[in-house]
């Protein structure tokens, strides 16, 4: 235990067994929404009684990239943008593992965008959670592929003029079988969505809109993280089954939340097994993990 770690309270926090408490307090700023998403994820694991030893968390780089380091699970902190392909390899080598990518918008939709779309296309059976705070935070608040038009960042000092990604639309159009979006305030619905995503066979995707007070709120004069939460309260609209085309997020405009996609489709391994079974007949043993695993 670190010397500066706070003394243990008499009764343990219920998440204690799921977190590396020897690393808490974490590095995230006050009012950052990532910690809230972690709590929801931990709750989802517990509520759904998912065997924790079989869960692996893979993260990339950035603020959300640090999630892997705080979860008391098999956890991998990889390089910028590459959490998804790492997770793909891990899952394919040992499909009995439940592999979850927990990363930020810069990591998943920016540098890692190519991996994201192809893994959704292949319907690889992993869960991807994207904490979207609308910019690159760890590096100091630069414009991202998700920054709303006109939002101010350190590399869009006169306002962002690029069109951002609509992540649920991107995931859905590439083939994801489960797509949902919630804000850090929709804590119970987010938990439920994580549970559904974890239990979904195929590529499941949950976007979490989260406050970044240090960079996004400050640069755009939006007040504190709490003010952003209040904004979500007043401006988010739950619309299950909404057309993903309608889910763009404008600067300080309405945020449509809900579950947008929940379909069944053969996964990468289902399709591979079917193809090889057809071509090779009885000579083919159904692949359930590489022979050495």
């Amino acid at each position, binding site marked *: 235990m670190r010397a500066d770690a706070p003394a243990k309270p008499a009764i343990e926090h219920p998440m204690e067994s799921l977190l590396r408490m020897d690393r808490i307090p974490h590095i995230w700023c006050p009012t950052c929404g990532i910690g809230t998403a972690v709590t929801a994820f931990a709750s989802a694991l517990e509520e759904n009684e998912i065997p924790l030893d079989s869960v692996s968390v893979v993260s990339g780089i950035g603020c959300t990239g640090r999630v892997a380091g705080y979860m008391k699970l098999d956890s991998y902190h990889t*390089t910028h943008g590459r959490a998804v*392909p790492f*997770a*793909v390899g891990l899952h394919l080598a040992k499909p009995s593992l439940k592999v979850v990518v927990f990363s930020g918008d810069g990591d998943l939709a920016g540098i890692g965008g190519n991996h994201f779309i*192809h893994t959704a296309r292949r319907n690889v059976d992993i869960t991807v959670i994207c904490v979207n705070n609308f910019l690159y935070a760890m590096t100091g608040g630069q414009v991202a592929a998700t920054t709303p038009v006109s939002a101010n960042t350190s590399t869009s000092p006169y306002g962002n003029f690029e069109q951002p990604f609509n992540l649920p639309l991107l995931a859905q159009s590439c083939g994801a079988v489960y797509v949902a979006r919630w804000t850090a305030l929709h804590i119970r619905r987010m938990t439920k969505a994580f549970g559904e995503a974890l239990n979904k066979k195929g590529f499941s995707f949950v976007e979490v809109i989260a406050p970044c007070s240090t960079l996004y709120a400050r640069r755009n004069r939006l007040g504190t993280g709490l003010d952003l939460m209040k904004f979500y309260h007043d401006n988010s609209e739950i619309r299950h089954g909404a057309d993903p085309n309608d889910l763009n997020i404008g600067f300080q405009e309405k945020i449509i939340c809900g579950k947008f996609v929940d379909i069944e489709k053969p996964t990468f391994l289902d399709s591979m097994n079917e193809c090889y079974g057809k071509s090779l007949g009885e*000579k083919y043993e159904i*692949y359930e993990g*590489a*022979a050495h695993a």
Partner: protein
Amino acid sequence: MKADPKGVLTGAHYIDGNYAIAEGALAAGCRFFGGYPITPSTEIAERFVQRAPHVGGLFIQMEDEMGSMNAVLGASWGGVKSMTCTSGPGFSLMMENFGLGLMLETPCVLVNVQRGGPSTGLPTLPGQGDMMQARWGSHGDYEVIALAPDSPQEGFDLTIHAFNLSERYRMPVLMMTDECVGHMTEKVVIPSAEGIEVEPRRFTKKPPSEFLPYEVDESLVPYAPIPGEGYRFHVSGLTHDEQGYPVINAEAQDKLVRRLVDKVKKNAADICKYEEKDIDGADVVVLSYGITSRVVQPAVEMAKKKGIKIGQIRLIVVWPFPEERIRELAGSVKGIVVPEINLGQMVLEVERCAAGRCATILVAHAGGGVHDPETIFQAIKEAAK
């Protein structure tokens, strides 16, 4: 441990170097291949995917080389021997995550079938221009292990050896071959599984409560956790402590990076592998590796006919470089001739080790073909003066 007979295609085959590498990988127990097509390496992937469904293996064609390298790392952490292959531009793209593999201490094999560069260069023609990139291509301080086969048979043999070294030292190992060997077809004899020694993963025997992912004994090589078995370990590309937790300070950096370097350096005698011929009493030594080792033979014959006392050293493992041996040789010969299909890369190591005690003569070829033996012969004559 003996090889799993399932992957071993025992018998005499007439196959090219690329197919031989795929067969070597399967014989070594590799069951995961994440690849991206690139000339002249693609046949390795093609052979692997033909064979994988018959041996319980899996091939996935990833979206790019960064994806390939990471899928291979992920699969290796999943407990499976894994590989990828690439060439030139793809090797550049893999370099960042080759570094992640080194940092996480992930066994796997990365094959580079070298072609002419820089940039797109000569996709269908040979080169040896990535030798220094192999050594220093990722950022930061580290040591690498790289092997260079000179024939399809050695492509097979060294791929097994590469997997064994990667497991023994828990790190990605490079196979630095070239288009010439890759596309050269020769007889390859694959022994029975009984005749193939493979190293298993160094899985920990400790229970989760006592396990630390980066705790090491005198071997300096940590033991691997078994994924999904309650070890609940954390590994990170950030500088980390024995627990795998990030520690961002100079002290932790020193401890970790020195160990990563030392586990190769201090075991160099075990890793280094070279072949010598006629060294005793030689005035001139030709140092070569890969396809160039075969190309020098007519030149060596010419030199012998001229009465030049000529010896040869062929690097089979190119990194780590056999520093000690080259220092010794430099003290006893007039010159070392280094033909390379690049404009001077491994020769820099020879010069460094020779430190002016003998002449070091580079015979450079920019790529796209192999040397004319005559040019090598001329360099040998000059060295013998």
